[in-house]
């Protein structure tokens, strides 16, 4: 038999778990301001996350999906994208959303069960959270197609999980992105679990990056606990997309350090040992060690940052809690551009029940 095609999947990592550089760092990583900024964002994510869980546990927030362990992926994605790009997310991408200008209060509102939380004042064209896994992979194709058609130097970024890669729409989107060579970057946050289903049960594929081969596009794996690797891969993929080079699939390897959501109890299905091992690789410790080593960070800065983040999160939570519930009419108000006459009576009935 002849060989008719050959492929390989590359793996990218810059920092080891102790923050030591394994190879020459990319340009941006030589600027301590950039790395510190990334670190600050990751710290804010963690503070937000903790606050959200606390609110949920005290009955002040709905079911919440923690991003614990995904912060480097979030920061890499959020920092590499341009303002005019469009981000399409699942429920676990609040970190990148924050960096894009979604406010903490909006996020709390969303998780608090209030539609107004998706009316982002900042990134007006970013998509709201897509709960139905992988459906937004096809939306991203449409967004990127529109950008390409209008010859805009913009890119769509579609973030999803390892579980999402088993779903038909993920593949349909990936394949279509290849067909039209769209300005579209898929970022798979492979946190090893889809609720209770481990990565190995999702697919027999050795990597998730190799799913790209089925679509004839570039795929690569990065260490998702290494924000430098994620950001670098994102920058390259975004630049390629902007230059007309087409889509990329980035698989970022991380670990879901929290339960799936506040409604889940991960101890039912995974071992404490595995979790403990994963904590050794976590992204904040790694970047902090690197920054401290380089002298760009110290204990007092850390303490100040934590105070700052907590205050910020606290203020946003309070603003959320102070928001009066929407009126019942809101059910009808943005259903159509204009309320159809046929719905006017139903609306009136709803108001009567208020």
């Amino acid at each position: 038999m002849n060989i008719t095609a050959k492929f390989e999947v590359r793996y990218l990592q810059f920092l080891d778990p102790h923050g030591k550089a394994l190879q020459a760092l990319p340009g941006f990583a030589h600027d301590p301001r950039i790395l510190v900024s990334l670190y600050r964002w990751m710290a804010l994510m963690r503070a937000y996350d903790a606050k959200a869980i606390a609110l949920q546990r005290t009955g002040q927030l709905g079911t919440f999906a923690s991003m614990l362990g995904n912060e480097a992926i979030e920061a890499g994605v959020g920092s590499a994208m341009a303002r005019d790009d469009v981000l399409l997310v699942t429920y676990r991408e609040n970190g990148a959303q924050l960096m894009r200008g979604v406010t903490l209060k909006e996020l709390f509102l969303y998780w608090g069960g209030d539609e107004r939380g998706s009316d982002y004042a900042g990134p007006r064209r970013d998509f709201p959270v897509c709960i139905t896994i992988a459906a937004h992979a096809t939306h991203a194709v449409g967004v990127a197609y529109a950008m390409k058609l209008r010859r805009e130097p913009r890119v769509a970024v579609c973030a999803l999980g390892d579980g999402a890669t088993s779903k038909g729409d993920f593949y349909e989107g990936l394949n279509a992105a290849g067909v039209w060579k769209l300005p579209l970057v898929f970022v798979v946050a492979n946190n090893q679990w889809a609720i209770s289903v481990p990565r190995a049960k999702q697919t027999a594929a050795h990597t998730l990056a190799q799913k790209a081969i089925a679509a004839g596009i570039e795929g690569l794996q990065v260490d998702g606990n290494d924000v430098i690797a994620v950001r670098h891969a994102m920058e390259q993929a975004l630049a390629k997309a902007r230059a007309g080079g087409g889509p990329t699939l980035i698989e970022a390897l991380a670990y879901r350090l929290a339960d799936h959501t506040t409604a889940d109890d991960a101890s039912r299905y995974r071992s404490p040992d595995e979790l403990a091992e994963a904590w050794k690789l976590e992204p904040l410790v790694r970047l902090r060690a690197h920054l401290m080593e380089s002298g760009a960070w110290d204990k007092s800065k850390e303490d100040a940052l934590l105070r700052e983040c907590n205050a910020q999160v606290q203020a946003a939570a309070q603003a959320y809690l102070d928001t009066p519930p929407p009126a019942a009419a809101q059910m009808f108000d943005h259903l159509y551009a204009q309320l159809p006459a046929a719905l006017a009576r139903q609306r009136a009935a709803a108001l009567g029940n208020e």
Partner: protein
Amino acid sequence: MAQITLVEAINLALKGEMERDPGVVVLGEDVGVDGGVFRATLGLTERFGPERVIDTPLAEALIAGMAIGMSVEGLKPVAEIQFSGFAYTTIDQILNHAGRMRHRTQGRLSCPMVLRMPCGAGIHAPEHHSESPEAMYAHIPGIRVVYPSSPRRAYGLLLAAIRDPDPVVFLEPTRLYRLFKEEVADSGEAMALDACFTLREGSDVTLVGWGGMIPEALAAADELAEQGVAAEVIDVATLKPLDMETILGSVAKTGRCIVATEAPRTCSFASEIAARLAEEALLNLLAPVQRVTGYDVVVPLPRLEHHYQPGKAQIVAAVKKTLAFA
């Protein structure tokens, strides 16, 4: 003004609107050089190029999802699903995303898109090519459902659908694609998207239908007229949101009503109209509303198709039953 068929009217509306609005794009399977399997998109590629007339990979969820993404980003996609039998994989996208984007973001984003699809029985097509799925779509909040039954209405309603700021599912009865011609002015004028069409006035009974049932209802009215029964015929071409006022007004006058659809009876749109009449017009009704529908069975392959699909005969029979009601 030319005499054209329904499918030519679709084509005319698409062509005109693509000309007027550079944001309009057409996408689907075989919509490009082939012009669509029914030729609804004929000549569009030559005129507007393959970037705006997009042959997609064979993936309906992609087509719907992509249209959602495009519309959110400001384009006006008109997506074709080759047959409604292949559109069920798009319901997830229509229900969970297209119909919700505006509400979910409190008006920040929206989906001005059209999902066109041929449907209905009567052309001796293979399996999955003959269903009439309007009821499923009509159950979905946040969208519009349109089902024209003449070249003129197809033209005016498709223009309206494309211009509408919200998602529209646009059902096209294959049996009527080339059944008859009508003069259609390429005026660029859209019709209202929430008004029934009273096609014929009459005082004895109201025949309500849509899509492929309309020629049957009109033929039934002709036959009834010969027998001295004056039937009013209402085309509910815009099923959702529903203009119930026109139907109620007619039934207030006639006191009797037949609602016809070729979809399976249970939870059909005929049931919806019958329920509303029972609720809001009980005192006007001289006889129970009769639903003339398909059976609750799988639409059979061509050899039995004519046994499945209701038509003039069933409508006339239902009218007689209604008139005989003491």
